[in-house]
């Protein structure tokens, strides 16, 4: 929809499946998302993760609100394919299978050619020579052992190598019909000709909420989180998850690939929300120990503004 990035919503979670979209989101809009795609055969490892990228509710809401993206109700974007669409898809699948079999069959031919080489005249002659040398050495060693009085050594005669019929080598066999093939399921749905997201695309948060596919923000806590996120983003920061440092967000002066964060932000949902002094001690100490300042970000739900308090250990006491 007019070049807006499609955010595919499933189960009220926001996913981005296209790597070009992901690129735009990060380079143009300063939002990073989180890759959550595992490898099917190694789903327990999380060192290498791939598509899709999952956007946090704040990131997705911000992109749609600023009109950079739209929500796509992915589950409802797959109508039945028409007969011709299905036939074309089926033909393409068959082509791909044939192609795989041809390639794998050719690889089989190569393996057979190598096997052929092993029984060529040259190879046989060389093998004979090697075997003869080995047996001569073994005989000499046995003679030495006999002279030293080794009772184990017997008097074995060298085993004659059966003469191989060095006839004309047989012609290479034709490539065997390889019956195995892989079924490929493409990642982006846009590759399927009947995928039609237009009928279930929502360009505003309200529309998506009304359609029941999106919730955020739904209460004061959500509004406070979103308000703080948006305010920090509008000031030019990159934002990441704060759980590693005991906060809600990590605030970076630039792309997280290039910078360490300077701040760890905690959202305080109102000016009168109760804060224990112990929280200030804990956040302040952790922040200072990790060379960050802890930010208490206070949301004012009436004025829709954010106030900031920076917390650091005093350095004395």
């Amino acid at each position, binding site marked *: 929809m007019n070049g807006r990035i499609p955010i595919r919503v499933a189960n009220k979670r926001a996913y981005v499946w296209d790597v070009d979209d992901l690129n735009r989101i990060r380079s143009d809009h300063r939002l990073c998302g989180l890759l959550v795609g595992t490898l099917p055969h190694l789903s327990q490892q999380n060192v290498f993760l791939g598509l899709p990228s999952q956007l946090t509710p704040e990131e997705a809401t911000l992109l749609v609100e600023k009109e950079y993206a739209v929500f796509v109700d992915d589950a409802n974007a797959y109508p039945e394919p028409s007969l011709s669409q299905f036939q074309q898809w089926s033909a393409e699948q068959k082509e791909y299978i044939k192609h795989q079999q041809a390639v794998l069959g050719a690889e089989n031919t190569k393996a057979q050619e190598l096997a052929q080489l092993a029984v060529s005249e040259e190879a046989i002659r060389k093998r004979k020579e090697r075997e003869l040398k080995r047996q001569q050495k073994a005989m000499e060693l046995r003679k030495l052992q006999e002279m030293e009085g080794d009772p184990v050594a017997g008097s074995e005669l060298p085993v004659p190598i059966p003469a191989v019929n060095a006839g004309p080598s047989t012609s290479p066999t034709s490539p065997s019909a390889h019956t195995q093939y892989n079924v490929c399921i493409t990642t982006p749905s846009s590759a399927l000709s009947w995928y039609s997201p237009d009928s279930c695309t929502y360009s505003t948060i309200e529309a998506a909420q009304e359609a029941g596919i999106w919730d955020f923000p739904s209460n004061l806590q959500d509004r406070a989180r979103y308000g703080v996120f948006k305010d920090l983003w509008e*000031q030019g920061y990159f934002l990441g998850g704060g759980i590693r440092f005991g906060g809600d967000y990590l605030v970076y002066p630039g792309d997280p690939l290039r910078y360490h964060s*300077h*701040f760890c932000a905690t959202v*305080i949902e*109102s*000016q*009168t*929300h*109760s*804060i*224990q*002094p*112990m929280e*200030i*001690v804990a956040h*302040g100490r952790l*922040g*200072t120990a990790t*060379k*960050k*300042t802890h*930010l*208490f970000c*206070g949301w004012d739900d009436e004025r829709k503004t954010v*106030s*900031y*308090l*920076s*917390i*650091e*250990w*005093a*350095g*004395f*006491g």
Partner: protein
Amino acid sequence: MLEIHPSYPALASVAEKYPTHRGSLFQTYNDILLAQQWRDVQVIDLARCKRGAIQGRRPRTAADADLLLHIVPCSLAESISLAWIQDVFAALANPPSIYLAVVSDDSSIVYYKLSSGIVKPSI
């Protein structure tokens, strides 16, 4: 708090005005004056916040030794809020930062620097 303690005269008026907070005020005052060895130490009445505060300068050997700094004591057992903190800033005529002294029952004190706005870490 012992009225016979040598620090008492400096604290008397504020301590009597706000008896709930005199414990943390007393501990902080003594720590700042005698242990941290600050100079020009004075007790201030924050009427708006219904408690006392302390102002002074760090020892001559410290960084920013000439700055007049403000400390507001509170107890670990209290609950505060952002509005409470903003009241303290306003009552002190909005300095760039204030120090919160958190006093616990065993007389441990920890000091944290609170600055308004987004202030980059000093390290």
